[in-house]
C-alpha cells in the first residue's frame, strides 16, 4: 500500500535535502525544526488500462454508454488536452492516444464518417506535427493528419462561434466545429486539481473574448486557491460557461488521473525521500549533478527535454462532465493531498526545469514567476502554506532568456510592461488589450508556434494572489539579479542569505516549511 503524504521535521539525523533549481538541483541543509512536506508515495497504476478505458466508455457516469451516442451520419469531434499536460511528458503510448483509439474504434463500428480531432490548445502555442503524433499515436495521426486532426485556432474568425452569455454576462465563444458537432468527446489528463471539469471545453476550445472573463486579476485574487475548484472564482466562471455549453452541445467527458511516478529510473532519486536513498541513488544523484554542472547549457537543456515520465494511470472516468470530475478530483486528492498542521512564516520551494508552458522550450523569468507564485503557491486547500505577510524563497537561476519562436510577446512584456510596473491590476488596465489584439502576435499565434499575445499577462495574473498575499516578499536563491529585480522581487546568493533577508520581514525565529515537490503535493493546511 502506498504511504500517505508526510511532514518531516528536520533534525540532526536529516541528510541534506534535494532542491530543484531549474535545469539542475542542489543538496540543501535546512535549519533544525524546519518542516518538509513530502507528497504521498506513488499510487499503484491501473493494471489493464485497455480494460479500464473500455469499462469507462461502456459504463459512464451520468450519461448513456458511448456506443449509444454514436450513429452513422453524425458529426463527431474529439478534443484533447495539449502539450501543457502532463509534466514532464509521459512515456509513449500517451494516455490520450490510447483513449482516442478506443473512441475511434467505437465510432468506426458505429459507421461515423465525419470525425474531427482538435488539440484544445486554447491560447497556447500550436503543437507541432511530431508533438501531436506523439500524443495521439501513429495510427490516429496517419489516419487524420493534417485535414481532420488540427490545432484549435482561437483567432480564426470563421472557426469560432459565440454560443451566448452566462447569467453574469460572461461570453461563451468556442471552436465552431466543436460547437456544431452532434457529439463532442473531450479527452483530458488531470495532473493537478485545477485541470479538467468545465475548464476543459470552455477554456481549451475558447477564445480571448471568452477567457478574459475569468483570466483576469480580480478572478485570480478571488481564487483561493485555483487548485481548489469549489473555492476558485476561475472555476466558478468556467463552470457557468460549461453549463451553458452543455445546454447547446452534447459533451462526453473522459478524464484520466496519473500517479506520482514523475521521473524515470535514471532520475529515480527525485521520486524518493532522501533518507531512503540507496547507495546507488546517492551515486546516481552525484553523477547526474556533476554531469549537469559540467555540461554546456545546450546539452543540459537537451537532457532535461528528453526526460519522459513513467506515469501510471490511476483512474479513467467518463460521462457527464461534473459527475466525472467529482471522481477525478477524488483521485487527484488521493495521490497528492498532504495534511499540514498550521501555516509557516517562510515557504521554501525548489522550482524544476519545466512548467506547462515551456515544454520543448525555454523557461523564461515570467514562467518561473508563474510556476512559483502561481502553481506552487496555490497548491493548497483551505489556506496557503505560508501566512499572510510571510516570505517565499524560491530556488531557480531565473535566466534572462526567452524562446524567440514560442514566447515573442513575453519578450516585449518583460522589456516594456514590467519595466514600467509590476502591479497586475495596472498592467491589466493599461496593456492587456494592446497585446491581446496586436496583429503581429495574432499572426504568430495562428501561423507560427507562438503563445498568444495576451498569454504573458495571464501568467503574471496567475501570481497575483501570491504577490498581494505576501506583499511581494519573494526571494530567488541563485536568481539572475537583473531579471529578478525586473519582476519586483529580490535575489539572494545563497539559501542562508535568503533566510537572513527573510528574517528581517518575519522575525528572528521563523517557522520554515519546504514544499518538496515535484512529485506534486497538494497541501491541506489545518
Amino acid at each position, binding site marked *: 500500500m502506498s*504511504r500517505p503524504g508526510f511532514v518531516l521535521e528536520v*533534525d540532526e539525523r536529516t541528510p541534506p535535502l534535494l532542491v530543484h533549481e531549474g535545469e539542475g538541483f542542489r543538496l540543501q541543509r535546512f535549519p533544525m525544526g524546519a518542516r518538509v512536506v513530502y507528497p504521498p508515495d506513488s499510487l499503484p497504476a491501473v493494471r489493464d488500462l485497455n480494460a479500464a478505458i473500455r469499462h469507462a466508455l461502456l459504463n459512464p457516469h451520468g450519461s448513456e454508454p458511448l456506443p449509444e451516442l454514436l450513429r452513422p451520419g453524425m458529426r463527431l469531434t474529439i478534443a484533447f488536452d495539449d502539450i501543457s499536460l502532463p509534466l514532464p511528458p509521459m512515456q509513449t503510448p500517451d494516455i490520450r492516444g490510447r483513449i482516442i483509439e478506443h473512441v475511434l474504434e467505437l465510432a468506426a463500428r458505429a459507421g461515423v464518417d465525419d470525425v474531427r480531432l482538435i488539440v484544445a490548445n486554447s491560447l497556447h502555442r500550436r503543437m507541432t506535427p511530431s508533438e501531436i503524433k506523439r500524443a495521439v499515436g501513429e495510427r490516429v495521426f496517419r489516419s487524420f493528419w493534417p485535414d481532420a486532426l488540427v490545432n484549435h485556432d482561437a483567432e480564426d474568425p470563421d472557426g469560432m462561434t459565440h454560443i451566448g452569455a452566462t447569467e453574469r454576462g460572461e461570453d461563451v465563444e468556442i471552436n465552431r466545429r466543436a460547437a456544431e458537432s452532434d457529439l463532442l468527446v473531450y479527452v483530458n489528463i488531470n495532473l493537478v486539481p485545477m485541470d479538467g471539469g468545465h475548464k476543459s471545453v470552455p477554456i481549451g476550445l475558447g477564445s480571448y473574448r471568452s477567457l478574459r472573463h475569468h483570466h483576469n486579476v480580480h478572478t485570480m485574487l478571488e481564487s483561493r486557491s485555483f487548485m481548489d475548484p469549489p473555492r476558485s472564482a476561475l472555476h466558478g466562471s468556467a463552470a457557468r460557461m460549461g453549463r451553458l455549453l452543455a445546454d447547446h452541445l452534447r459533451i462526453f467527458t473522459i478524464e484520466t488521473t496519473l500517479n506520482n511516478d514523475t521521473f524515470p529510473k535514471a532520475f529515480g532519486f527525485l521520486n524518493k525521500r532522501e*533518507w531512503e536513498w540507496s547507495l546507488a541513488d546517492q551515486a546516481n544523484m552525484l553523477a547526474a*549533478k556533476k554531469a549537469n554542472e559540467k555540461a554546456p547549457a545546450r546539452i543540459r537543456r537537451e537532457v532535461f527535454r528528453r526526460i519522459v515520465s513513467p506515469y501510471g494511470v490511476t483512474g479513467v472516468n467518463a460521462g457527464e462532465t461534473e459527475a466525472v470530475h467529482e471522481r477525478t478530483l477524488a483521485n487527484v486528492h488521493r495521490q497528492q493531498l498532504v495534511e499540514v498542521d498550521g501555516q509557516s512564516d517562510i515557504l521554501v520551494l525548489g522550482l524544476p526545469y519545466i512548467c506547462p508552458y515551456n515544454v520543448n522550450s525555454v523557461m523564461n523569468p515570467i514562467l518561473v514567476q508563474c510556476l512559483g507564485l502561481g502553481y506552487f503557491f496555490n497548491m493548497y486547500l483551505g489556506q496557503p502554506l505560508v501566512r499572510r505577510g510571510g516570505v517565499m524563497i524560491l530556488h531557480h537561476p531565473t535566466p534572462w532568456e526567452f524562446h524567440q519562436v514560442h514566447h515573442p510577446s513575453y519578450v516585449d512584456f518583460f522589456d516594456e510592461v514590467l519595466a514600467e510596473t509590476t502591479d497586475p491590476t495596472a498592467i491589466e488596465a493599461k496593456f492587456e488589450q494592446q497585446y491581446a489584439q496586436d496583429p503581429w502576435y495574432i499572426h504568430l499565434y495562428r501561423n507560427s508556434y507562438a503563445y498568444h499575445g495576451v498569454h504573458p499577462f495571464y501568467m503574471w495574473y496567475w501570481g497575483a494572489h501570491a504577490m498581494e498575499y505576501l506583499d511581494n516578499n519573494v526571494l530567488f536563491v541563485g536568481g539572475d539579479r537583473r531579471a529578478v529585480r525586473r519582476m519586483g522581487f529580490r535575489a539572494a546568493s545563497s539559501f542562508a542569505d535568503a533566510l537572513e533577508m527573510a528574517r528581517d520581514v518575519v522575525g528572528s525565529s521563523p517557522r520554515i516549511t519546504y514544499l518538496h515537490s515535484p512529485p506534486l503535493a497538494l497541501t491541506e493546511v489545518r
Partner: protein
Amino acid sequence: MASLLDDVREVARGWRWGRRGVLPRSAELSSDPPPAKEFPTAWARTPAGRGAREAIQRFVLRPLVWSQTRPSVEGLDHLAGIRPPVMFVSNHASHLDAPLVLCSLPKPWRRRTATAAAADYFFDVWWRGASTALVFNAIPIERAGGGRRSTNTAQALTARGWNLLVFPEGTRSRDGWVGRFRHGAARLCIEHGLPAIPVAIRGAYAAMPRGRSWPRPGRLPVSVRFGPPLAPREGEDFGSFSRRLQVAHARLWDEDRTTWWDSVRREAETSTPPISGPEAARWRRVWEASRPIARKEPSRVWPK
C-alpha cells in the same frame, strides 16, 4: 559550484557512509524497514575464519575484557558429559556479555559456538557486520521477527553441530534487570531437540551499561555462571519451555547472588527473587542494578 570532492564529502556526511544509516526521528513511523537481505557470514566459519577468530578471542578479546573487568566464571562443570550442539541462553545487559560468555567457554566449545546478533544493529553496515561475524562468529537475527532467512541460518548451523549463544530478551536491558524472554530461542530448542544451558551474567550492567563504549574504570567484578542443561519435554510448547528457561535463569541468578543451597531451597519454596527487579521507580531499579556485585573473596584460612 562545489567540486566533486566537496559533493562526495557532503553526501558521505549526510548519508553517514560506513555508519548506521540516516532516519530522521519524525520519519521513523512512516518509513519502511530496509528490504530483508541477510548479511553473508559463512566465510567466518571457514577454517581461515575460525583460525583468525581463535587468535583474536584468545590473544586480544579475552585479555582486553579480563584486564578491564574482573570476571569470575562458574558452572562450567555442567558442560561435562553433554554433546553439542546446545544453546547457551543468557541475559543481556551489556556489550560485554558475548565476549564474557565466549571467552569463558572451554576452547572446544568456544570454537563451535555461533552468536545470534541483531541484524539491524550489528549488520547494518558492512564493516560492523564483517567484524562482528569474524570476532563473535555472529549470525544476523531479525529482532522484529519475520526473518525467516535468519532462522533458517540458525537451523542450518545447529544441524551441523554448531552451538548457539542467544540473548532471548532481544536487546540489552535498559535498567540492568532481566526482561521477558522471547520465544524464538525456545522454539529453536524444541524444533531441533537442543538442550538449553542458562547463563546468568551479573555485574556487566554495572561495568559497562548501555550507552558506554568502554568498561567503567576500576576493574569491576563480573560474574558468569553456567547452569545445568534444560531439555524440552515431550510435547512441550514454546511458551511453556520459555517460562521454564526464565525460572531456571532466576534460580541461577539467585545462586550467584547467594549460594547454590539457598537458591535451591528458595526454588522449592517458590520464593526465588524475581530477576525482573524490584517494582519501583526506574531510577531505583537502575540504582540497584548499577551497584557493583559483591566481590567474592576466598575465605581466609588464617586470621589476619
